[in-house]
């Protein structure tokens, strides 16, 4: 009997190969979306992992000491000696080196001058490097036999490219207030130890730079002596010993004032986390498109079943069992699923490639050699294709199971199935169970601040109660009332429960989108009476036959229309929401700049090894005031972050708050204003102000935020610990202060790695800030200066986010393609399904034009409703969630309608839907009445 089911399935596929291909095309897009999400995640993961190969090689941990260059050799020697004579498990190599942070420039003038503002140079012995670790190829020194000759350097290939230099050209090193020009002797690849710094310099270069005379105020970040540590194992698996080795190294260097960094494990963890996050993000956003694909597939299977209903009825009448009908559908669906998954794999890879290219454009940073490259991993690709095929196969199986339960007589006579007897008791039990579960989910969600439970619980309760209520009242009344309540609940939940719904995960957003759109679609499909009245109004005036024909089918076939509407609305909803979100973010640049500027005009950052002094800036004619901020970093733990996490620390003094202060989101009791909080920092060595994202990385739960009164434990490079009390939380930290303490505290706690390399500058009246910023950056290129106005800084910080949102929208555009492909497929099948009707209409005198217009109007009607639902809900949700609840941003944001997005979303889908319907409409118009009427079903 399975053979019969297979034959039936094969015959149905072969009978209409073009339509089978359309079904495959319609359903392959879901797989493609999943594959693309996996490709994007793997590409980020792979590209970040590549940093381990390019800049670390065999280096697993770095033990660092800071000292003046004169002391550095001795200190590194002592450190290496200590480590070499301590038994440290899982370590197979030590490599001493000296490193200095520098600015590199190509020494040219004018427009040809190019600088690398945050670079480092390294002195290391090549023979020692080749012995380091197990594989000399991983060090990048396989062919480097000697140190650069005096007066020359080896430059890394990507740096040489950016500085536009080649062997024989000169590069100037700027550090510690002096400069030294060296000739490029060789360009080396960015691999392993050779890739760790921008250039390799001959021994004595750092000492020479540091020894140059300079003003006592020009405190710079001292050079560092490092011992690179290589663990047992290969390039990546050596990182598994890192936690253990770091513990041993810390123990061994306790009295050394040394900092131990787990370099490779941190990079690989970051790769895994970033890759995983992006995979989740793109999968979740792609979830809308996948749902659209599933809805399309259900629609197609329903259409296939309806088309074959009479034939299947006859089969059932002559003895074909129901299970066989289902099996036949499943086999056919499985063929479609496997074919679409295979094709989807290819399309998904192509889409992934486009997303990676887009992300590369967004992430492009002239100071950062990081490049995102396409990474294809067979297990991921197979998993994604299997998920796609599985979703398709399950959808087909579930839909077919429902469809196979048709009434044989009704099928043969082409009548609607008689209503099935309701299993009242079971329905009641399930409804009550659902209602109770919904209430339980809400309670748990409320108590534990779990957004998806809080949001979903009441929705489950409402829909469960529908089953019972529909027995007492009209189904239409019950369903539309429930849909209204659900929409209301979704829109009210964020403002009503701001604490529980703060920092919602992407999953909550997807859940809300699905619920909102489902409820709105239920509403829309129950508006048939209003549409019927409109049609009536049109047709009694002797016009609008095509409107009548166009609207009748979608209004009569509520389920199928609902599927199409939901498919489109979901995608448009998400795109509108993201568009509004991006617009709100872009619009918050002004308020964000106000929050961080503290009344200053410019923020000027310079290289910590060659910092620009406040005094130098004060001497400039356009500058009224320049205030220095001390910067460094420490390892912190707090209430929700038990893992020591390195975070920036910035020291401020009274001059910083002379004419303003950064805006605080919260401040401790007893302070009259934000400025008083900052003043307290200069008095209390244990007071700290932190940013709103403080220590939110790694294992910290995203829902946790710093609070006033929190205790924060800090550990400096020397291992000294101090506990701070949070007296304020910054509203915005686009300047990346990280945490703020008094300048004296920062200097003492972070020494010797605390440097005043950030300046807040107030300009004299009428000085054009943007032009002055540009001028300062160009003038102090040797200091690696980056001078920006505050709005420009905020815009730069936001551009990555808004860029990624744009990328998401483009990715979702793929969902729109699913919707359009679906509409095209559905309209093609509608033409086939209504062939006899069209024949009859033509026989009665309906013109070709009217038939064509009816089909075009039908798709326009569905698309326009979807646009209306998606746009209105998307914008409304953005207003409520982002602006009213502050769940996505603590900054004062202002709602802005993204008119460009709105217009694009209103026009493009409509035009595309018309384009997708042109061919089916033309086919419908070409139907010859005599031929259509000869068909018997």
């Amino acid at each position, binding site marked *: 009997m399975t053979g019969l089911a297979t034959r039936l399935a094969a015959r149905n596929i072969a009978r209409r190969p073009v339509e089978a291909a359309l079904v495959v095309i319609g359903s392959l897009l879901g797989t493609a979306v999943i594959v693309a999400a996996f490709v994007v995640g793997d590409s980020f993961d792979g590209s970040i992992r590549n940093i381990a190969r390019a800049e670390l090689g065999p280096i697993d941990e770095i033990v660092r000491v800071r000292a003046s260059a004169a002391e550095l050799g001795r200190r590194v020697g002592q450190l290496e000696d200590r480590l070499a004579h301590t038994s440290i498990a899982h370590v197979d190599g030590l490599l001493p080196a000296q490193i200095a942070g520098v600015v590199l420039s190509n020494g040219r003038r004018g427009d040809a001058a190019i600088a690398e503002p945050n670079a480092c140079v390294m002195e290391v012995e090549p023979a020692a490097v080749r012995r380091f670790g197990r594989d000399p190829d991983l060090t990048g020194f396989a062919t480097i036999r000697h140190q650069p000759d005096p007066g020359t350097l080896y430059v890394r290939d990507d740096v040489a490219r950016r500085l536009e230099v080649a062997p024989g050209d000169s590069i100037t090193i700027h550090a510690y207030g002096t400069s030294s020009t060296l000739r490029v002797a060789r360009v080396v690849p960015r691999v392993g130890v050779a890739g760790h710094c921008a250039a390799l310099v001959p021994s004595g270069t750092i000492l020479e730079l540091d020894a140059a005379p300079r003003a006592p105020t020009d405190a710079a970040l001292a050079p560092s002596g490092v011992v690179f540590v290589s663990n047992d194992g290969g390039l990546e698996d050596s990182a598994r010993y890192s936690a253990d080795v770091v513990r041993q190294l810390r123990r061994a260097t306790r009295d050394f004032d040394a900092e131990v960094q787990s370099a490779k494990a941190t990079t690989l963890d970051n790769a895994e986390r970033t890759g995983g996050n992006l995979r989740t993000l793109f999968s979740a956003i792609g979830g809308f498109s996948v749902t659209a694909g599933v809805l399309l597939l259900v629609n197609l299977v329903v259409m296939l079943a309806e088309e074959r209903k009479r034939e299947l009825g006859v089969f059932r009448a002559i003895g074909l069992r129901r299970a066989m009908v289902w099996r036949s559908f499943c086999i056919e669906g499985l063929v479609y699923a496997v074919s679409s998954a295979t094709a989807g794999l290819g399309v998904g890879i192509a889409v992934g490639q486009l997303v990676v290219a887009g992300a590369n454009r967004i992430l492009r940073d002239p100071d950062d050699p990081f490049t995102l490259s396409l990474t294809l991993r067979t297990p991921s690709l197979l998993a994604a294709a299997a998920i796609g095929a599985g979703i398709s196969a399950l959808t087909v199986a579930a839909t077919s199971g429902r469809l196979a339960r048709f009434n044989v007589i009704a099928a043969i006579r*082409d*009548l*609607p199935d008689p209503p099935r007897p309701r299993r009242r008791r079971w329905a009641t039990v399930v409804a009550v169970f659902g209602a109770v579960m919904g209430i339980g989910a809400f309670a748990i969600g409320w108590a534990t601040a779990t957004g998806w439970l809080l949001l979903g619980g009441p929705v489950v309760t409402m829909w469960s109660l529908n089953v019972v209520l529909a027995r007492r009242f009209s189904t239409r009344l019950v369903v539309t009332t429930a849909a209204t309540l659900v929409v209301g609940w979704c829109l009210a939940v964020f403002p009503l429960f701001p604490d529980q719904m703060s920092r919602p995960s992407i999953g909550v957003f997807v859940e809300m989108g699905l619920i909102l759109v489902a409820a709105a679609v239920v509403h829309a499909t129950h508006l048939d009476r209003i549409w019927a009245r409109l049609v009536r109004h049109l*047709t*009694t*005036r*002797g016009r609008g*036959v095509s409107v*009548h024909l166009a609207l*009748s*089918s979608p*209004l*009569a*076939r509520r389920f199928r229309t609902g599927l199409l509407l939901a498919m489109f609305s979901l995608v448009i909803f998400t795109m509108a929401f993201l568009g509004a979100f991006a617009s709100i973010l872009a619009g918050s640049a002004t308020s964000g700049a106000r929050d961080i500027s503290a009344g200053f005009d410019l923020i000027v950052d310079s290289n910590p090894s060659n910092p620009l002094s406040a005094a130098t800036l004060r001497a400039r004619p356009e500058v009224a005031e320049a205030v220095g901020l001390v910067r460094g970093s420490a390892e912190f733990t707090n209430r929700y972050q038990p893992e020591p996490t390195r975070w920036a620390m910035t020291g401020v003094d009274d001059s910083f708050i002379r004419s303003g202060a950064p805006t605080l989101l919260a401040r401790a009791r007893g302070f009259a204003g934000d400025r008083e909080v900052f003043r307290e920092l200069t008095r209390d060595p244990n007071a700290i102000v932190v940013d709103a994202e403080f220590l939110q990385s790694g294992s910290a739960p995203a829902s946790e935020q710093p609070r006033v009164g929190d205790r924060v434990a800090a550990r400096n490079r020397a291992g000294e610990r101090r506990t701070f009390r949070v007296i304020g939380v910054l509203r915005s930290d686009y300047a990346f202060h990280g945490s703020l303490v008094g300048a004296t505290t920062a200097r003492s706690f972070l020494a010797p790695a605390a440097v005043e390399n950030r300046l807040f500058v107030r300009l004299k009246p009428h000085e054009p800030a943007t032009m002055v910023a540009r001028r300062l950056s160009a003038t102090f290129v040797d200091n690696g200066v980056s001078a920006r106005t505050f709005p420009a800084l905020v815009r730069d910080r936001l551009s990555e986010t808004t860029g990624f949102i744009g990328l998401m929208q483009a990715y979702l555009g793929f969902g729109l393609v699913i919707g359009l492909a679906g509409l095209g497929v559905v309209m093609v099948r509608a033409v086939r399904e209504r062939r*006899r*009707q069209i*024949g*009859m*209409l*033509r*026989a*009665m*005198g*309906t*013109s*070709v034009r*009217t038939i064509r217009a009816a089909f075009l109007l039908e798709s326009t009607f569905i698309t326009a409703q979807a646009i209306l639902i998606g746009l209105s809900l998307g914008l409304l949700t953005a207003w409520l969630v982002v602006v009213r609840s502050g769940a996505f941003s603590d900054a004062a944001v202002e709602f802005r309608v993204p008119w460009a997005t709105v217009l694009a979303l209103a026009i493009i889908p409509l035009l595309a839907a018309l384009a997708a319907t042109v061919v089916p409409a033309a086919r419908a118009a070409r139907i*010859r*009445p*005599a*031929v259509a*009427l*000869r068909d*018997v*079903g």
Partner: protein
Amino acid sequence: MTVSAAPLLSARGVRKTYRSGATETVALRGIDFDLGAGELVMVMGPSGNGKTTLLNCLSGLDDIDSGTVEIDGLDIHALSDRERTEHRARRMGFIFQAFNLIPVFSAVENVELPLLLAGESDRNIRARAEALLARVGLGHRRDHRPAELSGGEQQRVAIARALVTRPAIVWADEPTGNLDSHTAQDILDVLHEVNADGQALVIVTHDRDIGASGQRLVEVHDGRVDYDGPPRP
């Protein structure tokens, strides 16, 4: 019923061949046919011998290979598709064995559709459709969709739809083929009433009794008219 001398429809030498790949099937082999206004003509013949093709070609639903079909003095096959369609909407009604109602329209919407297509600007379109439904005994079922009606009721709706524009010719292809004998007789009675009102009626049927109930019988065999005259006893 009296028949006027000038024919309402005049067909000469109508030939029609169906082609499917290399296979050619000659359906009509040069048929001549006249239809007078108000005439009731029964078309009979074995299955696959050209009855439905004749109806389709004479009504202009299908193209012909050669010959002419004139209705109201107009050669309908010389008209453009648009003109022919408009002509059909004004002058013809159709009834088919499979009813062919628009499933998403209610009974009354199905009936009023030809009025809309004919460009009727009358504000009483709905009233006219309802009146006709009442005449075929379905006034109480006007808001039901076809799927909610029995076969006989669907055919009555189809008849009402064919008559609502008061066409000069009503073409009926096996109008009782899907119905039981009792319902078939009811339908036939309605069709005779229609004819009594002066509308020409061409009915294709297999049923000898129905064939004998007309004023004129045309027998088609192998694409040719074998007999054209009064019903055989």
